[in-house]
C-alpha cells in the first residue's frame, strides 16, 4: 500500500498543465485521485510524474450555452449530483451521480477523471453515452471534440493521446417529452457496476419513439451503446411489451466480462433485465 517515488507538479492553469504533460514522459494527470492513487499504492501504476490539475479553477463548472450543457472535466461527482441546472435540463446525470462511491468519494472524484480512466464498471460512461455527450480534449497543439462512443476504446483505454487532457463534456439539452433513468446492480465489495444501464428516450405525443440512447457499463470491456435495443424502439409506438422485447437485445454482440462476482451469463441477464426496467422507468417519466 506504499507507492513508488514520483515527482508532483501542481499547475494552476490549463496551459501550464499541457506544457508539463508535453515535456515530461511517463506523466499521469491527477484529478480526484480515486482511481490513480489506489493503483499507485498497489504499484499497478508507477508514473514518474503526477500532474495535479485539481487547482485549475477553469476546469470546474456546469453551465448552459447554445442548447448545450457544458461541464468542466474537473467538476466533482457531488457538484453534478447537486446541480440544479442539470436536475432540470439533464436529470440522467443527477440521477447517476449518487450511485458512485460514497459522499467522500463524490466530493473528490471528478467526471473527467472517471471518463479518462475508463474503468469498464464505472457509472459515468453509461450516462454519458445515453445523453449523447461530446468530449472535448486539448493538447498544447490544439483541441478536438469526440463523440462519447468514439472516446471509449477498450478496457481502461480511451482515445486520449498521451499529450492530451480531457477538458470539457458537452451535452445536448434533451427536447420535451424526454425521459431518462439509470439502473445499477452494484458489485457489493467495490460498489462498482456489475451492470449499469442508462437510458434517455424521447417520445412524441403518440408515444412514438423519436430518439433513444441506451448506454451500458459493467457488462463488456468497454461501455457501449446498445444499438440493437435502440433500433428496435426507434420510430415505433412504445408499449411495455416492446420495451421488454427490445431489452432482450441488451447484451447482443458484446463479449461479456466474467469474474468471481458474476459470470458472463449472469451479467448478460442483468443487462437485459435492467435495460427493461430502465426503459420502463424512463418512459414512465415522460
Amino acid at each position, binding site marked *: *500500500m*506504499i507507492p513508488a517515488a514520483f515527482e508532483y507538479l501542481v499547475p494552476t492553469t490549463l496551459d501550464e498543465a499541457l506544457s508539463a504533460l508535453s515535456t515530461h514522459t511517463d506523466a499521469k494527470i491527477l484529478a480526484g485521485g480515486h482511481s490513480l492513487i489506489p493503483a499507485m499504492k498497489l504499484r499497478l501504476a508507477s508514473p514518474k510524474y503526477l500532474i495535479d490539475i485539481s487547482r485549475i479553477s477553469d476546469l470546474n463548472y456546469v453551465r448552459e450555452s447554445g442548447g448545450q450543457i457544458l461541464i468542466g472535466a474537473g467538476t466533482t461527482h457531488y457538484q453534478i449530483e447537486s446541480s440544479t441546472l442539470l436536475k432540470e435540463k439533464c436529470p440522467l446525470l443527477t440521477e447517476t451521480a449518487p450511485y458512485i462511491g460514497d459522499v467522500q468519494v463524490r466530493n473528490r472524484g471528478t467526471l473527467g477523471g472517471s471518463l479518462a480512466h475508463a474503468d469498464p464498471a464505472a457509472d459515468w460512461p453509461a450516462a454519458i453515452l445515453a445523453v449523447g455527450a461530446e468530449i472535448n480534449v486539448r493538447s498544447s497543439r490544439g483541441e478536438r471534440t469526440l463523440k462519447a462512443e468514439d472516446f471509449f476504446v477498450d478496457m481502461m483505454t480511451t482515445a486520449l493521446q498521451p499529450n492530451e487532457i480531457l477538458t470539457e463534456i458537452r451535452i445536448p439539452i434533451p427536447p420535451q417529452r424526454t425521459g431518462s433513468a439509470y439502473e445499477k446492480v452494484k458489485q457489493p465489495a467495490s460498489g462498482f457496476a456489475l451492470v449499469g444501464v442508462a437510458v434517455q428516450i424521447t417520445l412524441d405525443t403518440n408515444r412514438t419513439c423519436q430518439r433513444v440512447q441506451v448506454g451500458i457499463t459493467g457488462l463488456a470491456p468497454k461501455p457501449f451503446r446498445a444499438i440493437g435495443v435502440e433500433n428496435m424502439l426507434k420510430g415505433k409506438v412504445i408499449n411495455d411489451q416492446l420495451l421488454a422485447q427490445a431489452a432482450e437485445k441488451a447484451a447482443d454482440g458484446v463479449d461479456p466480462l466474467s469474474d468471481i462476482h458474476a459470470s458472463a451469463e449472469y451479467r448478460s441477464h442483468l443487462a437485459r433485465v435492467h435495460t427493461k426496467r430502465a426503459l420502463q422507468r424512463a418512459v414512465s417519466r415522460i
Partner: protein
Amino acid sequence: MATKLIGERIKRKEDPRLITGTASYVDDIKLPNVHHVAFLRSIYGHAKINKIDVSEARKLPGVVAVLTHDDIKGVLKPMPCVGGVPDMHTPEHYPLSGGKVRFVGEAIAAVVANDRYVARDALDLINVDYEPLPVVVDMEKALEKGAPLLYEEYGENRGFTWKISGGDIDKAFQEADRVVKLRLVNQRVAPIPLETRAVLAQYQDRGVEGELTVWTSTQIPHGIRTSIAGMLNLPEHRVRVIAPEVGGGFGCKVDFYGEEVLIPYLAMKLKVPVKWVEGRRENIQATDHGRDQINYIEAAVKNDGTVVGLRVKVLADMGAYYQLLSPVIPTLTGLMMCGPYKISNVSMEVLGVFTNKMATDAYRGAGRPEATYLLERTMDAIAAELNLDPVEVRMKNFIQPNEFPYKTATGLVYDSGNYQAALQKALDHVGYTKLREEQKKLREQGQYVGIGISSYVEICAFGPSAATATGGWESATVRIEPTGKVTVLTGSSPHGQGQETTFAQIVADGLGLTMEDITVQHGDTAVVQYGIGTFGSRATAVGGTAVYLALQKVKEKATKFAAHMLKVDSKGLVFRDGKIFPENNPEKSVTLTEVALAAYLAKDLPPDTEPGLVATAFYEPKNFTFPFGTHIAVVDIDPETGQIKFRRYVAVDDCGNIINMLTVHGQVHGGIAQGLGQALYEEVVYDENGQLLTGSFMDYCIPKAHHLPKFELDYTVTPTNVNPLGVKGVGEAGTIGSTPAVVNAVIDALAHLGVRNIDMPLKPEKIWKTIKEHAPKKGPIIVA
C-alpha cells in the same frame, strides 16, 4: 438516593477519543529513530525456494538489514500451537519461511529500513528463485489419493482426526423413521479488523538489565509477553507488552504471530526501535481466516419431527500451518453440536485438513457459529422433509426450561435457559402467523418471500481453566486512591468491547460513586497484573466477575475503616453517594474520600488491618455460560434477478443479566452485521493455483451500512448462577444467531420450488441459477 448504574444505557467512556480521532493505536506511537519493516511474501501457493538473493536490496540506501529464513534458523524457535488435539501432525513454521512456501502471503524475507517507503522499495530488489509445486486448495480434493502433499513426510494432507460422541448413535439411526441428510459448506471468511495488525518494539539496553517493550495490536497482551520471553530467551519480567487502543480483533488477535516475535528480535539485534504496520492486502493474505468447514450431516428423525440422533462428519480446513489455536476451533463445533436441543445420541468426526491457504483460527464465534449453522439448517431441512413448520420442529426438540442445569450428550452442562421463551418472543415480535399467511398469498402472486428462524445456544465465558488451552481465569485489581477516586486494573484487555465503561459501572455501583470517579486500565503488562485477555465472550462474565470479587474485597476493607472511624459495627454499612453509613442511620456518615485518606495516612488503623485500599482477585469460573436466543430474518427475493432485500430482522437474545444495554445493543448490531456478511457477501476465494482472488476490499465484501436491515432487538433475561453477576456474555451471539437466520430465510423463500440448500455466500447469481433450475418452465420472467 444514588442512581443504579448496572443495567442502564450508559454512553461509553471510550467513544469520545475514538470518535474524535485522539485515540492511540500502535501506528500512532512515535519513537525517535524508529525503523520500518516490510515483508516479502510468497507469490505462489506452493513452491520450493531454490534461492533468495537479497544483495541488491541490501545496497539500497536506507536499508539496514534484510533477513531471510537462514538468518533466523537456529535463533528463533518455531511458532507455537497451544490448541492441539491428540495424535496430530504438527508442522513447524517460522516467522520467515525457507525451503518451501505453502500459501500466498507467507513471509519469506524482511527488510528493515530507516523509512517505510525505502523498506517497501527494497522488496522489489529481492530476487526469489521459486520452483512452483502442484497446489491443492480444496479440502475434499486434498484428501483424495494422489493429491499434492503439503508435507511429504506425513504422506497425507490430513492433519488430525478428532471425535466426540454421546449416547448410542447406531441405535438412534436404527430407530429413526427417516434420515435427513445435508452437505453444507461453511465458507472461509476473513476477520477484517479495521485496525490491521501492527507491532512496534524497542529494546533499551541497560547493561545487564535490558528491557524490551513491545506494542502490539492484540487481545492477549500477557500471553504475548510470555510467548515473546520464551521465544527470545528473555526473562519475562524484562519484557513489557502493551496493547494500546486495539481497533477490533474478532478472534484473529488471540493469536501469536511470527511478526510479533520477529519485530522484537529485530529491535534487539539492530538496537533501534522497529515498527511494522500490516497493510490491508497483507491482512487478507496473512492474518488468520475463519470458518472453512464442510459438514456432512445425517439426522435421525421421527415422523413427528423429534431428532433422535445426529451424525456429522466435518472437514475443517487448517490452511498450510496451525496457528496458536487452529485445531481446537472445530472441536468447539463438536462440543456444541446439540445446540438448544435434546439430542441424546450424537457423534462427530472432525478431520483437520492441510491446504495451500492461510491458516484458519478463531473468528468471532470460533466453532460455535458452525455448530449453530449446521443445526439450524438441519432443523429447517427436517421441517421441509416432514412438511412441518420450522417452529414446530424446534419447539418439539428444545430442552425444557425445568431441565436446567442440563447435561448434553457431548458432556457440557448448560447453566440456565428458556429457549421457548426467546423463540416465542421473536415470533410475537415479527408477527409470525400473519407473516406465514402473507407469504402464502404472495407466493400465489409469484412473489418470493422467506422467513428464516435460527435458535441458538452458545458456549461463552471461556472458561474453566481445565477446559482451556491457556488458562481460563481472569484477574482484576480495584484500587481506591488516597482521594477516594478509583483505579481498576483488568486482565481482560479489550479491543472495542467497552470494558472501561461496563467495569466502571460495576465498581461505581458497588462503591456508591459516579462513572467519573472510576478509571479502568488495561493492556499494559507493566501496569496490570497477569491476565488472560478478551475473547470467547468472556470479558464481562469472567473479567467482570474478577472486578466484582476484587471490589468486594476492597469494600470489606473500606467498611472496616469506616466502622472504625464512625465507631459503629461494620455490619449494615452501605456505600451510597460517595458516603458510607449505617443503613438505618444515614446522618452518621463518613465519605469514601475520608476513608481512603485515613487508609493511606494510617494514623489510626483499625485492629489487624494493613494500610492502603487495594484488592486483587483472580476468578476461576466453575463452568462456562450458555447464552441463547432466536433470530428471525424476513426477505424478499427478486425472482427475475435473485437479488435479496430485507423486510425484517428481529433478534431476541438472552445473555443473562445486562450491565449496559447500549454496549449489548452494540455487540448485537456488530455481530449480526458480521454474521449476515458471511451469509450473503463474504468469502475468501483462492483459485486452483492458490492465488488469492479476494485480496482487497475491491473484491472482498464486508457489509456496509446500506447492506444491513433495520435491527429490531429484544431480550429475555435468564441469569446464570455460574458467576455472582448473573451475566453470560454477548460478544459473539449476533454472529452465531444471524447467519443461519438469513440463509434459512432465503431457502424458505424458494422452498415451494423444491429448493433445500444453497451454500454461502448467497450471491444473487446463485439464487438466480437455482430459481432457473427449479422452475425451468417459467424461465426468465418477462413482465409484459
